[in-house]
């Protein structure tokens, strides 16, 4: 055993897979120690906040202010609202309106704004312009309001007696606050999802749940497969025939169909994460059974098994001491693959709406499902689905890599 572990850790593939998997596991274990929020807590009023650092505007006005004369400040201010994309769009509209291309210089903000203010008319819709595009121009026009006005902003507070607004604070163009001194700053590295839940916290929790689902599904499938395979292979005869009859039956029925039907018949309310995991395990034991049976059949006539029989050992002792250790390497590898395919099966089921019920725990599949329902992929809200895909891919990749590495250790024919 020690020797096998030693060999396994000398395989670069296994080590790479192991390191990735351990990193994921460490994230799942240690992240909740630092961020104690409930993963499904709704913090944002709105859908799909982009990733970034969120600073409380209210607290910013109360934070100590510093005056800094930065030459690039004005350019940045204009650039934030009037980027290259917006300038191109404005030129497109102006050309469609009838202004010659030569007269439009999109790098000169003042000239461009003059042209725009002079000619733009939200009611105009040129040939070939979609209504979405028309609305985009209207939004763009609204955001450009007061762009070039470089006046201080005044904060007005209503007088408690008269109700009239009175200026309380003037914010200069050169005023700055230190982010560290603002009372409320929230970092959302992956933004929020459609419900306004912190994506990263949810993702970490979902990886944990999905790993548990994979583990339970893999354990159930491996246990069923191993038991049936050992019985069919070692006992043989009628037992073998009956077990193989059912195994062939399940092989012929596509697993996903069975999975969908069972999940559907359980009903939304009863589908917890563990239930779904067990269902996945119950439908994916077939190949383990076949492989274990084949190996046991080749093992049961070996001399060491005969010798063990002659030494008076019981059938259980022979199975556990003389057969199981010989196929254990295969079973471990099959188990690793079952975990990986269990996670994928959960994702597939959840996307179809047949995964665990949505109110308890996040899973990777459920996160993708909600992202899909709220059209995150069409709205270009990559942070709502891309990290989930990467997480699934990394888990599968690391598990498969470990499997390949072990395969090379156990199977001399595959060694490089």
């Amino acid at each position, binding site marked *: 055993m020690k020797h096998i572990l030693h060999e396994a850790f000398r395989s670069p593939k296994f080590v790479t897979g192991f390191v990735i998997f351990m990193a994921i596991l460490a994230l799942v274990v240690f992240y909740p120690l630092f961020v104690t929020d409930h993963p499904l807590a709704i913090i944002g009023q709105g859908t799909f906040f982009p990733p970034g650092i969120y600073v409380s505007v209210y607290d910013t006005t109360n934070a100590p202010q510093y005056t800094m004369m930065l030459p690039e400040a004005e350019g940045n201010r204009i650039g934030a609202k009037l980027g290259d994309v917006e300038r191109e769009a404005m030129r497109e509209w102006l050309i469609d309106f009838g202004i010659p291309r030569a007269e439009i210089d999109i790098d000169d903000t003042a000239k461009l704004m003059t042209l725009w203010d002079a000619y733009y008319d939200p009611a105009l819709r040129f040939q070939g312009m979609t209504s979405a595009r028309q609305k985009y121009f209207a939004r763009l026009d609204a955001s450009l309001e007061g762009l070039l006005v470089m006046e201080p902003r005044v904060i007005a507070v209503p007088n408690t007696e008269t109700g009239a607004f009175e200026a309380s604070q003037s914010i200069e163009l050169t005023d700055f606050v230190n982010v560290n001194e603002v009372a409320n700053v929230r970092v959302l590295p992956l933004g929020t999802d459609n419900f306004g839940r912190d994506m990263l916290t949810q993702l970490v929790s979902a990886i944990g749940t999905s790993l548990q689902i994979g583990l339970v599904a893999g354990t159930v499938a491996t246990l069923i497969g191993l038991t049936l395979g050992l019985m069919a292979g070692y006992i043989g005869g009628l037992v073998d025939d009956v077990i193989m009859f059912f195994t062939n039956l399940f092989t012929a029925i596509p697993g996903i169909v069975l999975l969908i039907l069972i999940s559907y018949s359980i009903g939304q309310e009863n589908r917890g994460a563990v239930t779904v995991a067990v269902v996945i395990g119950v439908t994916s034991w077939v190949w383990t059974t076949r492989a274990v049976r084949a190996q046991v059949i080749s093992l049961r006539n070996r001399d060491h098994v005969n*010798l063990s029989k002659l030494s008076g050992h019981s059938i259980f002792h022979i199975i556990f001491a003389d057969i199981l250790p010989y196929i254990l390497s295969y079973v471990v590898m099959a188990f690793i693959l079952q975990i990986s395919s269990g996670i994928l099966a959960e994702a597939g089921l959840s996307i179809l709406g047949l995964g665990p019920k949505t109110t308890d725990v996040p899973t990777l599949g459920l996160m993708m499902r909600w992202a899909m329902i709220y059209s995150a992929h069409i709205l270009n809200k990559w942070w709502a689905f891309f990290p989930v895909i990467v997480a699934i891919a990394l888990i599968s990749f690391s598990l498969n890599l470990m499997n390949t590495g072990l395969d090379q250790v156990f199977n001399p024919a595959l060694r490089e």
Partner: protein
Amino acid sequence: MNDERKLCLSGKGLTKVFGLGRQKTVAVDHVDFAFHEGEIISIVGESGSGKTTLAKMLLGLIGETEGEVYFQGVKRDIGSQKKKQNYWKQIQAIFQDPFSSYNIFHKIDEVLLDCIRMRGGGKLPHAKKVEMMTEACSFVNLKFEELTNKYPFELSGGQQQRLMIARIFLLKPKILLADEPTSMIDACSRATILDFLMQLRDEIGMTLIFITHDIGLAYYVSDTVYIMEKGKFVESGSADEVILNPQQPYTRRLLNDVPKIHEEWDLSTV
């Protein structure tokens, strides 16, 4: 045959058929035999003649399709695990390939301790067990101190086969079935293995059944020889009768196939 000697293991019409229909193979075809106590018997035949299948049936590892086996004159009954265990206290085997005869996950000590336990010595104090194991190992010229805590694959083929004999020494069965015990071993160790087997036979007075393709070996060691061809015993009798005066063409062929140093080899029958 001499009827004064007690019958030890005998069979009547013993048959083993593998497969069904077109794939039906008759591995052992209605063989009759009578092995007496204290005898050395050789069953000789070429590859695929059914020797090993017969051996496995005698050991009770596979069931017979037809026919009966009598153990000490009584019909053998190995219906339950308990009866099988009792039967295996009387009859033991040494297999052809020492490298595949051991469970590679178990240490050598366990193999020997199993034998002590089978002889009812499971509750003996540890020191006594070690003493017994040391005695068994020294019988086959192995040092237990060097073997303890080692795995079988750390030994050479000859050492492994000698350890098998040590196992038999501990078990002291009535019958030992040796299925080509020397065929996987180099020529030098071969004589030693045979030597230990003979010594062991003298020591505990067991019946020895050799399964072999080597007719020279059969002549060298045995009292009685059975020649097996395609699942049938074609010739049997005392070693001198069969080898020196073969009646069957098959036996003559087997004898011709023994390579001789000072003659040109006749490969026409191969």
